[in-house]
């Protein structure tokens, strides 16, 4: 009966999907003379609402942010009965913030590039992280120190913060990233498994595998040695970590074959993925988006079509940003087309 909780949202997303920009629109934006013309083309689409809301229309970042916030808020309101699953999508922003905040504390700089789309928001996260939180004093003339807000954090988040802190002790900012990524992906896969959303579980397990595959490709490129690779991989995926390590010094073809055996054969449809880690990364994110998009195509009722829509929307915004930035910097359209 749980699919009843998703039925309304799935119906709505079916219509919203038709409003995603098609390749014709992207082609026109690529052909546009300048960034202004790109924004004009956007005005003919569902971005018109964002363009109308933002006074300074040249502030394209504000327009794109507005659109992302609008879509996220809409999806959140539709998924209110299934908050736990819906939050899995937005937790990635909290994870990003958590990394930024912890690393900022580590290096003693001001945190920059915090995202406000997360479930908790940067301020609450900061309050949870700080060993002593602060609040306004009764007279309103200053602040007083209070105990940490960590007890207000849900168990999983408290665990992440704890694990992140332990990783900080190593002094390596990348260790923080690694520990938190792994903790989040495993948590998401487990939550999806408990809800019996098989494709979502597959998505996060695939994310672990493919993150490991990309790390392996990078380490091979940089010849870091297999010992280092062993420390840079995430546990908990479908493919055991030691198999990646075993393939460290094999040929690129046998590494590709190894991933094919685990069902990731489509990654290597373009040959560049064999040699370039960046191409593999691109292929991996396409693979995962496609995994959810295929689930959405089968007209199933569950969180998958909604996640697929959100991923497609974010990808669309990313592509528009590439085009606008490219037009502002006078980058030729052929190069832009390649980047897309």
């Amino acid at each position: 009966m749980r699919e009843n909780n998703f039925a309304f949202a799935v119906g709505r997303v079916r219509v919203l999907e038709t409003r995603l920009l098609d390749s014709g629109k992207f082609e026109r934006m690529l052909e546009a003379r300048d960034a202004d013309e790109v924004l004009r083309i956007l005005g003919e689409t569902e971005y018109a609402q964002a363009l109308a809301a933002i006074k300074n229309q040249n502030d394209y970042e504000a327009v794109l942010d507005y659109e992302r916030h609008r879509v996220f808020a809409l999806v959140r309101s539709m998924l209110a009965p299934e908050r736990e699953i819906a939050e899995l999508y937005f937790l990635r922003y909290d994870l990003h913030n958590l990394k930024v905040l912890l690393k900022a504390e580590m290096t003693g700089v001001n945190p920059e590039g915090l995202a406000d789309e997360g479930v908790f928001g940067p301020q609450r996260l900061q309050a949870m992280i700080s060993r002593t939180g602060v609040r306004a004093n009764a007279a309103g003339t200053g602040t007083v120190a209070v105990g940490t807000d960590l007890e207000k954090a849900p168990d999983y988040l408290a665990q992440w913060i704890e694990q992140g802190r332990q990783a900080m002790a190593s002094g390596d900012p990348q260790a923080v990233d690694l520990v938190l990524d792994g903790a989040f992906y495993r948590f998401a896969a487990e939550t999806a498994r408990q809800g019996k959303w098989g494709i979502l579980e597959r998505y996060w397990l695939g994310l672990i595998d493919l993150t490991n595959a990309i790390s392996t490709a990078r380490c091979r490129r940089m010849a870091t040695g297999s010992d280092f690779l062993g420390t840079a991989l995430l546990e908990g995926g479908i493919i055991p970590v030691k198999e990646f390590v075993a393939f460290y010094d094999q040929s690129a073809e046998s590494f590709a074959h190894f991933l094919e055996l685990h069902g990731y054969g489509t990654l290597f449809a373009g040959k560049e993925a064999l040699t370039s880690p960046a191409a593999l990364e691109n292929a991996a994110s396409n693979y995962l988006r496609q995994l959810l998009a295929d689930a959405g195509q089968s007209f199933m009722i569950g969180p998958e079509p909604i996640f697929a829509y959100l991923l497609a929307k974010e990808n669309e915004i990313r592509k528009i940003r590439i085009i606008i930035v490219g037009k502002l910097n006078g980058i030729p359209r052929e190069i832009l087309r390649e980047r897309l």
Partner: protein
Amino acid sequence: MEIAWGTILAYLGMFLAVALSGYGSARGVGLAGQVACGVVAEDPTKFGKTMLLTALPGTQGIYGFVIGMLILGRIGGGAPITLDMGLRLLISGLPVGLVGLLSAIWQGRVSAAGIGIVAKRPEEGTKGMVFAGLVETYAILAFIFSYLMVNAI
């Protein structure tokens, strides 16, 4: 007072025919209806086509209702009916009840998917209706058989 087992069994048959198919229809229409609401919330012009698809899983409930009425007619208001006849009436209600229950739920899912087609490609919406209609076949077959069984008594 002696318990009229025949009459009780006949009532049970009536109950199963009406309640099972009605429950299935309610679930099927409920699922398709929610998807349709989502579509109409974004695009009100799709009301007509989505409404037809939503109504399709509702027919099983009607078939069950008709068989229930026929059984009630057989029970009549008069003397208690025999055990043998009561049992036959009970069995007659089962095809439309059971097949109605399952086919309505599955038809609801096909309809929900069909509504997805209407949302994405309104011009192909009729095809979704054909698929949902295929599920209907089995509800109709069960209905006809229940009908023949009641009439054969």
